[in-house]
């Protein structure tokens, strides 16, 4: 099922949670809403579910306006961050809940419900645990029960609010890959909220980066990472170096290095370069920023190098972080105090407001 969100606004008192949000989710897509806390991502998910209602704007399911419909009528599967399992009933009863509360006319028979519960337990890899109570399960198992419970009603869309947020790192990694495989098998449109960029980039088809109630960028994971559209996205996704720049006539001066910046207006700018997008060259090489190595940290095959760029036209020395593969820098002296040139393979200039 496809979802369209049109000009949605939402306020909580004086706090603007969402400002003119527009978004389309394609049928069968796996979409991540990514942002720091307070960015409005959970509010957007809850508005899609019908747990929250927009002040203005529409939510369309397959082209039908469902803005006024309650969560009960929207037929969505919602998975909560802290599972929200019913702790006084067994796992099997939890999964069967959505079927058992149906009116008698549309309720499956006892036997059908039992069979479906068994199938779902199999699907979420918890066969034989139907008789347990939620408190007897680990966090990862509880989250899978929550997922089975949401899937039991055969929802048109699966919505997950920080589904792995409360789990430890290893379980989180396993579970998210498993979820992605499950999605590929079932093909159900899935939207999940996360503040973990690694999680979003790894499993989502497309990533929606949000900040302060506004969508900053939407695109395939790789594209969002490689070509951040705004300084916020640059900062939020992965490590990055922020270098002050001055722009005149479409050319930016970044610590002595001249970079074309045709779309940036004259004045102060900020240049972004990720640590692994610097090439280390011998000092004096053309097209590099001159600096002095202040620290070298070896981390397995990767060298993490801090380079001091002496203040030329800026007030303070710049600290630049560089990542390089150990094999790639043979022949260079990388000891403390050595002079090197930093040649960015990829650099983006934004106006500095």
């Amino acid at each position: 099922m496809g979802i369209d969100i049109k000009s949605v606004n939402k306020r909580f008192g004086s706090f603007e949670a969402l400002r003119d949000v527009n978004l389309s989710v394609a049928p069968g897509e796996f979409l991540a809403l990514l942002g720091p806390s307070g960015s409005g991502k959970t509010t957007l998910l809850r508005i899609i579910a019908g747990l929250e209602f927009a002040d203005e704007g529409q939510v369309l399911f397959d082209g039908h306006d469902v803005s006024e419909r309650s969560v009960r009528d929207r037929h969505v599967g919602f998975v909560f961050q802290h599972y929200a399992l019913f702790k006084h009933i067994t796992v099997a009863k939890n999964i069967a809940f959505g079927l058992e509360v149906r009116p008698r006319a549309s309720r499956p028979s006892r036997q059908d419900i039992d069979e479906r519960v068994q199938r779902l337990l199999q699907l979420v890899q918890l066969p034989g645990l139907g008789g347990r109570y939620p408190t007897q399960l680990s966090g990862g198992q509880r989250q899978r029960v929550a997922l089975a419970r949401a899937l039991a009603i055969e929802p048109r869309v699966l919505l997950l609010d920080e589904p792995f947020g409360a789990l430890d790192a290893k379980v989180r990694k396993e579970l998210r890959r498993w979820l992605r495989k499950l999605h590929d098998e079932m093909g159900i449109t899935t939207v999940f909220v996360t503040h973990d960029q690694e999680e979003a980039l790894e499993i989502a088809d497309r990533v929606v980066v949000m900040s302060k109630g506004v969508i900053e960028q939407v695109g395939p994971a790789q594209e969002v990472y490689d070509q951040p559209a705004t300084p916020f996205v640059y900062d939020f996704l992965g490590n990055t170096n922020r270098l002050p720049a001055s722009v005149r006539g479409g050319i930016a001066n970044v610590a002595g290095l001249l970079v074309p910046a045709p779309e940036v207006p004259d004045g102060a700018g900020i240049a972004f370069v990720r640590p692994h997008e610097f090439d280390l060259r011998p000092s004096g090489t053309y097209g590099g920023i001159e600096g002095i190595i202040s620290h070298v940290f070896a981390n397995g095959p990767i060298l993490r190098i801090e380079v001091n760029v002496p203040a030329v036209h800026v007030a303070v020395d710049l600290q630049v972080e560089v990542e390089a593969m150990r094999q790639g820098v043979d022949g260079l002296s990388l000891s403390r105090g050595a002079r090197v040139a930093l040649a960015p393979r990829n650099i983006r200039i934004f106006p500095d407001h």
Partner: protein
Amino acid sequence: MDGAPRSNDATTEGPFLRLGLSGIALLYLALFLVLPLVAVFVEAFAKGLGPFLAAVTEPDALSAVKLTLIVAAISVPMNLVFGVAAAWAIAKYEFWGKSFLITLIDLPFSVSPVISGLVYILLFGAQGLLGPWLYEHDIKIIFAVPGIVLATIFVTFPFIARELIPLMQEQGTSEEEAAISLGASGWQTFRRVTLPNIRWGLLYGVLLCNARAMGEFGAVSVVSGHVRGLTNTMPLHVEILYNEYNFTASFAVASLLALLALVTLILKSVLEWRYGDEIAASARH
């Protein structure tokens, strides 16, 4: 260095201090709780079983027991419904005037029960606000059973709500949201999710509310009029007998009241013992 074993626990005090503290606590309990309770029973049976039975089977005493049970049977269910509704509204929704409502629920705890009774006299009494109208329509509230029930409800209504509000606030709304998103109606959500989550707190609230409803003296005394055999509850009956120097009968009825309180306490302990694991499990997580 060998010698006397030393205490390894930094928080463990010397034996004298420990004994002293326990002794003070036990003495205090014995003096102010156990002794009076024992005295009630001793006095009740001071002249043997015969006078005791006579006192508690006397028609006025029986009518007092009956009235007390009726009052509790009306006021506890009413406060149950109100308490659950109020706690639900306060814990699960945001609305204007919420903190005012919480303060209002605490009101009966903070005003003297005598005042609570007087409020009803001022409202429904012969010289009260609605008095003339009630008189014209021949509706009796003050010095009658309805007044006693009203006063009891007023005095006991915080018990259940107060027990439930923190519990429901702590539990949050996500289980209810999950139930509704799975297609449950409001009633189904309440019955299948909310109620099971609050049942222990609710039970405590009901037990406490019931104990107070049966034992309330001040507010009931003001509105009852002390008509023997008609508007006397057990606590009032005890007082009347006592004022007539009929000590044995007075303590006999009092011992019945004390017995009811003890049964309530024992019931609570038995439930805690029987379902302790489950209570702990539902409080956790």
